[in-house]
C-alpha cells in the first residue's frame, strides 16, 4: 500500500514565546517492508536552526530552534511511503517463547541488542500484577507467536478503549486499575506484560490507515497517530502486534519510530521560554491512500 501521511501539531500561547527548541520524530523509517519515497518537515515560524540525525534506535530525529517571537508554533511532517506486510519467520515464532529471553540467553544471535528492550523503562514498570496477568498467556513451552497473539487478544477483550480514562503520563499500574486507555497505554501495558517475563519488546510509533464507514467520504485530518509493539523473536526478527486492534501489524501500518517506550519517540517534544500562562495543543493527522485502494480491508480504529 502507498500512503501520503501528514501530521500537524499546532501549539498556541496567550503570550509571546521568545525561544522554542524541539525534537520531532515524524519521518518514517526505511524498513525491509517500508519504503519512504519522500518526506518533508515544516516548522512555522521558520526555525533559525534545523538538523536531521539518526538516533540511537535508528529513527530519524529532527532538532529545531525557533528564536523569532511567536504565539503559535506549527510542526508539520509530510511523507509518502510504500508498505507491505512485514515478514514473520514462522520457525522462530513456533519456538517456545522462553527461547526469546535475551537476559537468560545472552549468547543467542541478536540477543545483546534486544537486551535494551527487555529491561524496565521509565514508562514501563514491571509490576507483579502485570507479570501475573501475562503468565496466563505465557504458559510453559507455548510457541512465541501463539502466546503473544493470545495475550494481545486478551488485552483487547479485557481492556476498554477510552480516551477519557488516561493521560499521556499514565503509568502501568494506573492503566491496570482503570482497565482502560488508548493505544499508547495498551502498548505500554503489553510491553510490561512481555518484559516482566523476560521477553524483549519495543514501543512502535506510527500510523494506521483507516477506512471511512461505508457510503461516507474520508474525512481529512480525522486520523490519529498510533502505537503498537514489536516483540523480539530471535536474530533480528521482531513480530509487530497491535493490542488496540487485536491483530498483527500489516500493510496498513506506517512505522515512524521505535524505542523503549513513548518517552523515546514522541512525535514532537520541546522546551519553550515564555511568560505565557496558557497554551493549547491541536493535532491533526491524515493518512491518505494513494493509487488503488484496498477496498476489502476492514476498517479499524487508530490510536
Amino acid at each position, binding site marked *: 500500500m502507498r500512503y501520503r501521511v501528514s501530521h500537524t501539531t499546532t501549539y498556541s500561547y496567550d503570550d509571546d514565546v521568545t525561544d522554542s527548541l524541539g*525534537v520531532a520524530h515524524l519521518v518514517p523509517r526505511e524498513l525491509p517492508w517500508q519504503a519512504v519515497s519522500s518526506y518533508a518537515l515544516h516548522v512555522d515560524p521558520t526555525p533559525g536552526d534545523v538538523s536531521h540525525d*539518526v*538516533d540511537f534506535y535508528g529513527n530519524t530525529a529532527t532538532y529545531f530552534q525557533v528564536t523569532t517571537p511567536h504565539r503559535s508554533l506549527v510542526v508539520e511532517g509530510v511523507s509518502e511511503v510504500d508498505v507491505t506486510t512485514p515478514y514473520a519467520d514462522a520457525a522462530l515464532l513456533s519456538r517456545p517463547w522462553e527461547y526469546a529471553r535475551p*537476559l537468560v540467553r*545472552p549468547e543467542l544471535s541478536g540477543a*545483546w541488542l534486544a*537486551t535494551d528492550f527487555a529491561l524496565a523503562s521509565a514508562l514501563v514498570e514491571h509490576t507483579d500484577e502485570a507479570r501475573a496477568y501475562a503468565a496466563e498467556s505465557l504458559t510453559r513451552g507455548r510457541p512465541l507467536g501463539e502466546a503473544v497473539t493470545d495475550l494481545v487478544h486478551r488485552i483487547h477483550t479485557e481492556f476498554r478503549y477510552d480516551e477519557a480514562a488516561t493521560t499521556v503520563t499514565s503509568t502501568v499500574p494506573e492503566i491496570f486499575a482503570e482497565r482502560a486507555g488508548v493505544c499508547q497505554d495498551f502498548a505500554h501495558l503489553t510491553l510490561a506484560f512481555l518484559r516482566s517475563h523476560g521477553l524483549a519488546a519495543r514501543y512502535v510509533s506510527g500510523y494506521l490507515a483507516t477506512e471511512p464507514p461505508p457510503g461516507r467520504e474520508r474525512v481529512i485530518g480525522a486520523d490519529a497517530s498510533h502505537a503498537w509493539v514489536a516483540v523480539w523473536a530471535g536474530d533480528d526478527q521482531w513480530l509487530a502486534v497491535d493490542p488496540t486492534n487485536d491483530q498483527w501489524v500489516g500493510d496498513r501500518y506506517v512505522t515512524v519510530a521505535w524505542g523503549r517506550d513513548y518517552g523515546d519517540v514522541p512525535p514532537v517534544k*520541546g*522546551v519553550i521560554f515564555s511568560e505565557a500562562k496558557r*497554551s493549547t495543543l491541536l493535532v491533526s493527522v491524515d493518512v491518505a491512500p494513494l493509487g488503488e485502494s484496498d477496498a476489502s480491508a476492514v476498517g479499524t480504529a487508530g490510536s
Partner: protein
Amino acid sequence: MSALRDYAAALSQPALGDESERGRYDEVVGPDGSLRAAWKGLAEVAVGITAGDLHRVDGDIARFLADDGVTYARPGQGQGAWRLDPVPLVIDAPSWTPLETGLAQRAELLNALLVDLYGEQRLLADGIIPAAVVFAHAGFTRVVARPAAIDPRPLVLAATDLGRDAAGEWRVLGDRAEAPSGIGYAMENRRVISRVLPELYREAGLHRMEPYFWALRSALIQSAQGDLADPRVVVLSPGTHSETAYDQAFVASALGFPLVQGSDLVVRDGWVNLKVPGGGGGAGRLERVDVILRRVDAAWSDPLELRGDSQLGVAGLVEAVRRGRVRVVNGLGAGVLENPGLLPYLPAACEALLGEPLRLASVPTWWCGDPDGLGHVLDHLDRLAVRPIDGAADALDGLAVDRLRERLLDEPHRYVGQERLPLSQSPTWTPAGPVPRPLTLRTFTLRYGSAYRPLVGGLANVHGADGGRPVCAKDVWVLKAAPGDPDQGLSGVLPMTAARSTAVLVPRVLEDMFWFGRYAERVEDLLRLVIAAHALADDYRTRPRSTGGESLAVVMDGLHRLAGRRHDDLDEEFRSLLLDADRTGSVAHGLAALRDSLLGVRDQLSPDTWRAFGATDRAAEALQSSPHSHQIAESAGRMLTGILSLQGVTASMIRDPGWHVMGAGRALERATQVAHLLRATTTVRRGIDVDREVLNAVLAATESAVTHRRRYRGYVRPAGVLDLLLMDADNPRSVRFSLEATRDHLTRLPGSTGSSRPERLVEDLLADLDRTEVAALVAIGGVGRPNLEVFLDGFALQLGRLADAMAHLHFASGPAPRQLGAP
C-alpha cells in the same frame, strides 16, 4: 607524651572489645610496632608532636576552615563545616609508583570503554561485557550514543576510590566519572595542613599540588574543539545548594574560569553561549562558550532531551555536543562508568581494548545478572555487600535477608555482590587522643597531552569505626623519591597567570552582587541598632527613670518593625534578634541570606571574604555559651567587626559592573534603612526628654553622633538630626549621599542609558529631596509631624520601586524553560 608513640603502644595492646580494628593494615605503624617506611623520615618531627599539640592543631584547623568558608552538604542536610583530620595519610614514592601506573592505565581503559559503549559497542556485541550491565544502568545516555556524535576523549578527569585489603594492597572500590568532585577539597586540605603543621610539612619533601591545577587548566583549554586561540571555558554548577558547592567554586576560582549555572547559558544555532548583559538593556549580548567543565549530572543537563523537569541544565546542550560545537568535560554519558557491575569485566575489557592486563585489581565483585555470579552472591549474603549497579550504594543496607534475596531474584541484573574490604586504618584525632579509623583514598587522573596523569596526592576519607559514610577527611602526602624531583612530575607546565576568575557578569551574578551589597548593609545597620537599643536597655536597668522605658520602647519598636516581635524579656529578644536564623529580619537571617548571595559568586570573591563569617560565627557561639547580658553587646560588636571587614574586601575589588551593582545595592539599602529608622522614631512627639534620648540612639545607630556633636554642640533636636541624616550631601550616612552614590553606580552599569527607568527614579528621588525643606518636615501637627510621616512613607515606597526597576532592567534573565505543550 608523644601522640604517635602512644598510638603505636595502644595498637600493640590486644584490642579490647573493638573487633573492627583487628586485622587491619595500619598506615603508620607496622606489625612489629615500628613506624612504616613513609613515616621513618618524618619520625624526628612526628614523634615530637604531643596530644596537646594535636588538640591545638585540631582547633586551628577548624578555625582556618571556617575562615575559608569550607563547607560540605552531607546527604539530607544543609551545608555544614568541612572536617579535616590533622594527621595526613603519608605514602612514600616506592608505594606510590605502582598505584600511579595502575591509575593511568585505568583512566586510559575507562576512556576507551566510553568510546566503545557510545560508538561501536564491540564489547557488548562480543559479550565481553554483558549488554544488560550497560543498558540497565541509569547513566547510559542514549541521546549521545549516535554514530555521528562520537567524542574521542570523553574522559578528561576521572576519580577512583581505593581501599586496602588485609594484605595492604590497594584495591579499586569504584570510579567517579560523571562529574568527579573533591579535587578542590584536596587542595584546601593541603593549604590548611601546611599552615598548621609547618615543621612536619617542610620536613616531608612531598609533591606540591599547584602544578597539577595548572595542568588541569591547560588540559581544559586544550580540550576545546578545533584550534581556538583563546577558548572560553566555564565551570557549570548546579548551584549553591549542591553538596560540593565549595569544591566547584574552589576549582573555578583556582583555575580562573567563571562559575556559571544553567540559567546563565543559552543555545543559539547549535552553539552554547553565556548571556552577558549588554547595551541593549534586558536582551544583552551572547558570548560563545567552548568548554564546559560539568558539575551537573548528565540527566539534569538538558531539559529538551534529558530530564524535562530540570532547571539546572541548558536546553539544546545535547545537540550542541553532538554537533561538536562545545566540549563538555567529562562527556555526557560518562556516568555509565559509575557502575560496580562493570568491575568483574574490566580485566577482559582491558585485554580487548588496550591489549594488556589490568594492573589495578578491583574489590572482588560479582554481577548478579550472570547466573554464576547470582549463585555466588546468594550463597554468601552474610559476608558480601549487595549494591545496585546505579543509585545510592547503600540503598539495600539494612534489608532483611529474605527481602534481599527476593530483590536479587526479581531483577538480578540490577545488583552486584562485593567483598567487604577490611580497609586500612590511620590515627585519627578525637578529643580522647588519636584512635585508629578506617580510610579510603580518592585519587584523580587527568588527561594531559596524550596521556593520563594521576594527581600525586589525593583526598583520604575517614570512616567511622564500623565503616559507613565518611566522617572527616585527611590530606594525602605523597613523598618525593629524590628532593629534586619536579612537583607532580610536571616540569614543563607553565604556571598560571590569572589567579582570579575573569568575571562573567551574567544577570544572576549581578543579582547576587546586588544582594551582597544590600544584605551587608542591612546586617550592619541592624547590628548598630541592636547595640544602640541594648545600651539604652542597660542604661534604663541601672538608672530607672520615667523616660528611659519610653525611649527604649520607641527604639525597640524600630527593631520590631524590621524583625517582628518574639520575646517580652529584653535580653531574650536581643539574643533572638542576633541568633535566630528562622526569624525573618534577624541578624542571623540576614547573615544567612548574605552568605547565600556570596556563595553564588564565590569564584569571583577574595578568599578573605569568608573571614567575616568566621568572625560572626564565633561571636554567635560565644553568645550562645554565655548567659550574661553584656555578652549581647560584646557579640553584636564582634559581629559588626566581622561584617565591616567585608568593606575591606570590596575595597580591593576590580571596579567592574559587579562591584558597581554591589555598591548600588549597599547605597540603596542604606537610604532605605535610614528612612525606615526615621519613620519609626521621629514622626511622633513624646516629650523633650524622650525625644532627645531616642534621637541620640538614632544618631548612634547611624554612626552620626560624632558629626552631630561637632556641628550642633550636643544640642539634639529633630531638625538637626533630619538635616544630617536626610539632606547632608557630605554625610555618607545620609539619604542624599546614599542616593547620589546609587546614581553614580547605576551610571556605570551596562544597560544604563542615562534615561533608563532606575536612573530616572533615582533622579526623581534626588529632586524630591531638593524640593523638601527640613523646616517644613518638622512642622508639628497634633502629637506628630504629619509632613514628615507622609514624606518618609512616600520616599520608602519610591525606594522600593527603584529596587524593582533595577531588578527588571539588570537582573532579568528571562523566563525559565518549560516543556512544550505543558499546561
